[in-house]
């Protein structure tokens, strides 16, 4: 089997104390949506942070396009083409929408007007509100700003930590639609989700984590069809 585009392989580690991840493996291919689901405390967000370099791994490697990036800082990973949208505090609340996007493009030295236009095309509401402080927007709009900010570096992989936390079902559906659109443009999406059923519906690949280890790995549709997955993790 060919090497996946981004892979966190057999990751073991935690935040200094006891290990949270136990040999967990997560991978994503270009243009694919991979979703990590699982019960509370399964280490979903931790796995995501490990791939992004926000915690130290005791064992295991992270590779991007065949290159070992295990030792790189998050900032260096951004330069390598990874974008990350944290779960909370993911926008600059006192700055305007447009300034948020500019800050997203901070590491770019070239002209990023095209990227900004693409983001506005993807999230038209942001264009209307571009001179408003981002902190004044609604929850769903803030998430759009957050995703837009991460897209400004033109990443090859976009990592989203529970992008639909605290938004209404309608807004959630719209966000998922946008995420599919992003994936269609060839960007890999790696996403942690609480709303497991809806997320698996759009997922090309699903990872069910339990206690920091892979329990089930399959396509989203297959996981949704698996009776055991349904019973244990999707509420029947």
């Amino acid at each position, binding site marked *: 089997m060919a090497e996946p585009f981004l892979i966190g392989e057999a990751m073991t580690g935690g935040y200094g104390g006891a290990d949270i991840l136990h040999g967990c493996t997560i991978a994503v291919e270009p243009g694919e949506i991979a979703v990590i689901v699982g019960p509370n405390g399964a280490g979903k967000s931790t796995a995501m942070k490990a791939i992004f370099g926000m915690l130290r791994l005791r064992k295991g490697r992270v590779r991007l396009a065949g290159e070992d990036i295990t030792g790189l800082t998050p900032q260096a990973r951004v330069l390598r083409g990874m974008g990350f949208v944290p779960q909370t505090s993911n926008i*600059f609340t006192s*700055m305007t929408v447009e300034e948020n996007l*500019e800050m997203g493009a*901070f590491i770019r030295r070239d002209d990023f007007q095209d990227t900004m236009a693409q983001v506005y095309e993807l999230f038209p509401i942001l264009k209307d509100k571009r001179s408003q402080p981002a902190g004044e927007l609604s929850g769903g709009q803030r998430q759009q700003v957050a995703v837009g900010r991460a897209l400004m570096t033109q990443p090859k992989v976009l990592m989203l930590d529970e992008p639909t936390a605290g938004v209404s079902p309608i807004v959630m559906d719209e966000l998922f639609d946008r995420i599919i659109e992003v994936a269609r443009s060839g960007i890999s999406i790696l996403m942690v989700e609480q709303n497991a059923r809806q997320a698996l519906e759009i997922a090309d690949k699903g990872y069910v984590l339990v206690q920091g280890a892979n329990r089930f790995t399959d396509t989203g549709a297959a996981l949704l069809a698996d009776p055991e997955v349904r019973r244990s993790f999707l509420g029947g």
Partner: protein
Amino acid sequence: MDFLNGLVTFLNFVFIPGAAYGAQLALGALGVTLVYGILRFSNFAHGDTMAFGTAATILVTWGLTGLGVSFGSLPTALLALPAGIAITAALVLATDRMVYRFYRRVKAAPVVLVMVSMGVMFVMNALTRFFPGIGVNDINFADGGRFIIGVREFREMTGLQEGLAIRTTQAITLVVAAVAVALLFWFLNRTRTGKSMRAFSDNEDLALLSGINPERVVAVTWILVAALATTAGVLYGLDKSFKAFTYFQLLLPIFASAVVGGLGNPLGAIAGGFVIAFSEVTVTYAWKRVLTWWLPERWAPDSLVQLLGTDYKFAVSFAILVIVLLFRPTGIFRGKSL
């Protein structure tokens, strides 16, 4: 006529001095608020940074006048100001490198940094006094023209009995402060580096994720702080006089200004500066002269109508500070504290 005479008296003794003092406080408070917003601690060394910057500027001024350079009717110190800023910037950058950076790395609690800033204050105070000719002397370095309008000229011009004097230093204070503030806001709102500073202040983690280099942000902040502190100190020194230890006492009104406006909020710092300055001047001014003009003769006051002696001007800053802490700890403009 009586009303105009009263108004002129008011302008002469309350409004103009208050505005000049307010501008000086605002510049000082801006420096404090920038450090707070970016480095997240209250910098107790700020008063002595101002003193150091002023002393450095005075030395350069002396050098210039020694060479026969002057700035016409304006004080030579204005010419020396950029050099003073550069020297001060070098000092605070070195201080950051040798002292503060370590505590950033270990993510020390803000209160530890406050204490460290106290140590820095000691050292800066000593360095200021080491400058040749500075020591603990009372120095008046305002050369050039004394007045833009003198009392007598004004009376002759207007025919009023009361005179209005606008000192050069007061006018310079307002003009320089306005330019400095405009530059600062242009920098923060329009330039990439300035925006990155605001982003860093707003959400440090996300700023790091966006690839903003924290050390660069911090360095730029210190340079701005040095510029603001030196400018504030020089303006205050031109307007009053310079003594190495009086600047420490400005800490209280400066902090009060910054807290009133909301720590970490630059607009608030400016508003706070003027609130504190005008309160101080209003409360400690003897209103008899103004009221004698404004009130009917029967009501003319016998006493000075001075709410508090001038020695209690600290009490005014303090009272306002306490009221703000009690009722709105985040300040008028909602700083980023709490």
